[in-house]
């Protein structure tokens, strides 16, 4: 079990609610997307002798406007600029690439550094004004001079007009050439270089929309097998598909579903079984799904039930009617693995987030809030009182703030560093050992 995290930094990213958080492959960069269509990238400070304590701090590296609000004239509807997902591409040269998507359009962004500039142009002044050709009496070779680091973000590809419904997932394939995008009813496969075409690989839209009872909620490519991907549904099922089987992967290769427990059946059973996130383990042998009350770990070789189930906030089961009324029951929580697949993390309400150690079966509840922790303070585990006498430091279920929800969390791919998004604040926690 990792040591109780020590908070390293808390950043207010902006005025808008953070809608996605993602580390890159090395963990040096952390990207956030928000409801206003902005992307903010943080970079980890390198160790330096001058500032030994600064190791591990993430500071703003780049900010840019990824998506703008649009208006669909045919439907008379606004298209939100909210960034639904960000996925990094593996780094191949000095520049960094990431995919960001809103409901309808995916964009490939290149983030590059510029720390030199050319000086001594012949045809223009240092100001940039053109020099009078007649005044030029000699030629010189421009020289590269160092300058303050500038990080530029430029859109390199725009993948548009391929989704009728709202995009909920994007996932880069292990071949590093293709990626998939999923909306409520369809999944498309793209080539990163080609923007005017995509292949539809899953289509669950019924011929008669009135018969629609199930939608796609999340999709992900397998981390190693570039022909395999999974997608989850609102009915609590996961389908694993093999692209070698056919052009259209409507028929799954594997179908994962846990049989329903008849004793806990209620009118809300289906809603709370809807899967909000699915993530492969780094090893590729397991996958994890998040539904409203629990996180389940599945062995890809066993389809009839998960191998592990973790209750996130079981005390909410008796409050489902109220949560249905205030729409909280439709909140889509994400989940994530740590680098070694030994622990998983997911969010809850009241700015709580939960971590589960798969080996020791221990779990911990922590809170991401400014009031309760000073910088570099050690976080105190929290506990929700479910009934009976409330102990000191416990919080009762009725006191939970359901407006403070942690939907997005991310775990550094190699170290025990986690990023937790709480409304418009980004919290970064790190192991005490560091």
């Amino acid at each position: 079990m990792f040591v109780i995290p020590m908070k390293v930094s808390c950043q207010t990213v902006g005025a808008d609610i953070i809608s996605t958080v993602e580390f890159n492959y090395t963990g040096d960069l952390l990207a956030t997307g928000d409801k206003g269509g902005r992307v903010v990238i943080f970079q980890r400070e390198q160790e330096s002798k001058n500032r030994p304590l600064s190791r591990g701090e993430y500071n703003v590296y780049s900010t840019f406007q990824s998506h703008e609000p649009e208006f669909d004239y045919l439907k008379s509807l606004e298209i939100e600029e909210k960034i639904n997902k960000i996925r990094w591409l593996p780094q191949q040269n000095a520049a960094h690439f990431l995919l960001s998507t809103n409901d309808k359009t995916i964009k490939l962004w290149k983030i590059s550094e510029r720390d030199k500039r050319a000086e001594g142009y012949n045809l223009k002044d240092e100001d940039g004004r053109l020099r009078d050709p007649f005044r030029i009496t000699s030629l010189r070779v421009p020289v590269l001079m160092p300058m303050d680091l500038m990080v530029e973000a430029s859109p390199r590809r725009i993948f548009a007009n391929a989704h009728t419904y709202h995009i909920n997932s994007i996932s880069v394939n292990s071949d590093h050439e293709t990626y998939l995008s999923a909306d409520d009813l369809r999944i498309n496969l793209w080539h990163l270089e080609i923007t005017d075409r995509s292949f539809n690989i899953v289509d669950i839209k019924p011929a008669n929309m009135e018969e629609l009872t199930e939608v796609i909620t999340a999709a992900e490519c397998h981390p190693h097998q570039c022909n395999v991907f999974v997608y989850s549904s609102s009915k609590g099922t996961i389908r694993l598909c093999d692209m070698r089987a056919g052009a259209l992967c409507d028929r799954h290769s594997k179908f994962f579903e846990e049989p329903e427990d008849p004793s806990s059946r209620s009118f809300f059973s289906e809603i709370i079984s809807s899967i909000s996130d699915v993530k492969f383990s780094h090893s590729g042998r397991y996958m994890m799904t998040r539904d409203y009350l629990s996180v389940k770990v599945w062995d890809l070789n066993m389809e009839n039930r998960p191998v592990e189930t973790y209750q996130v906030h079981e005390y909410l089961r008796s409050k489902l009617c109220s949560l249905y009324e205030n729409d909280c029951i439709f909140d889509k929580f994400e989940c994530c693995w740590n680098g070694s697949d030994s622990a998983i993390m997911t969010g809850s309400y009241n700015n709580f987030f939960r971590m589960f150690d798969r080996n020791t079966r221990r779990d911990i509840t922590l809170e991401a809030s400014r009031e309760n922790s000073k910088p570099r303070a050690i976080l105190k585990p929290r506990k929700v009182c479910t009934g009976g006498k409330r102990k000191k430091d416990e919080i009762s279920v009725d006191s939970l703030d359901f407006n403070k929800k942690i939907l997005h969390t991310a775990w550094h791919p190699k170290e025990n560093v986690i990023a937790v998004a709480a409304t418009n604040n980004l919290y970064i926690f790190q192991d005490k050992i560091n």
Partner: protein
Amino acid sequence: MFSKGTKRKFSDGGEELPEEGLPGSNEELSSVSYSLQRQSLLDMSLIKLQLCHMLVEPNLCRSVLIANTVRQIQEEMTHDGSWQAATMMEAFAAASAAGSGAAGPPERLVATEVLCRPGREMNGSPTAEPKLFSVMGYEECREEEVVAVEEDSICSEAASNVCLSGSMGHCWERGMLRGERELDSRLGAPDEDVDVEEEDEEEEDDNELEGCREEGEAKAMRQVFGTFEIKNSHPGPESALEELFSDVDASYYDLDTMLTGMQAAPKIGPYDLLDSLSQSHTPSSLSSASNCRSDLNELDHIMEIIVGS
């Protein structure tokens, strides 16, 4: 707000009660409270579906989940037979109220529309027959009119597309037939005792409506849209108009044009009809032509029926 989630199977009703501390027969009371909870859940679900965000496209996943929940409740209510019990009780109450002369809560079909916006992804035209709880309202949300008419009215021109009702196909047909019967009888014999007729036909209606599940939706609609009720269901405005006009003298059209100076449109919609009728009622527009008298009397009668005294 409830402290417990609603249980689908009510086998353990006894266990739920001690918290609420209800006296009396546990089973009876708990089954009533379960029905109430279930009904309330149904109402809530229908309201959620009807409230479309006007600017941004509604979340399809959420809509589908709510729709499935409504379907579940409908199925269970039908299975329980509580649907049937509810309709019969209402009819009984209405009949006794009508008999006493008061306009009691009517046992009738309630039709109302989902007020939404047309969208690009419309699969075909708005269906006339409501299906088992459909997803039609999800993505497109069509704008369809709601017409308020008195409960005594026979002229129910309201567009009767109930997006959110259960499998109403057969109910709609019966309703239409009943509507025609009533319409003919009312127009042909205005002197008959309307109340008695209502009562008789209501009892007949109950038996026909056994399979219908509209009661829950009816209540939900009432909550959302107020008391928009029609006596009889009609499949569409045009056939209702035809029935309305079938017994009306053709000279009505001339009267209407003369009185209101309307440009005669080839088709008169339901609102035009009401407008023209109400206009024809204003004294200032009354013509002194004698051949209008009888027409006016008829108009008066029709107007009375539509608008109510």
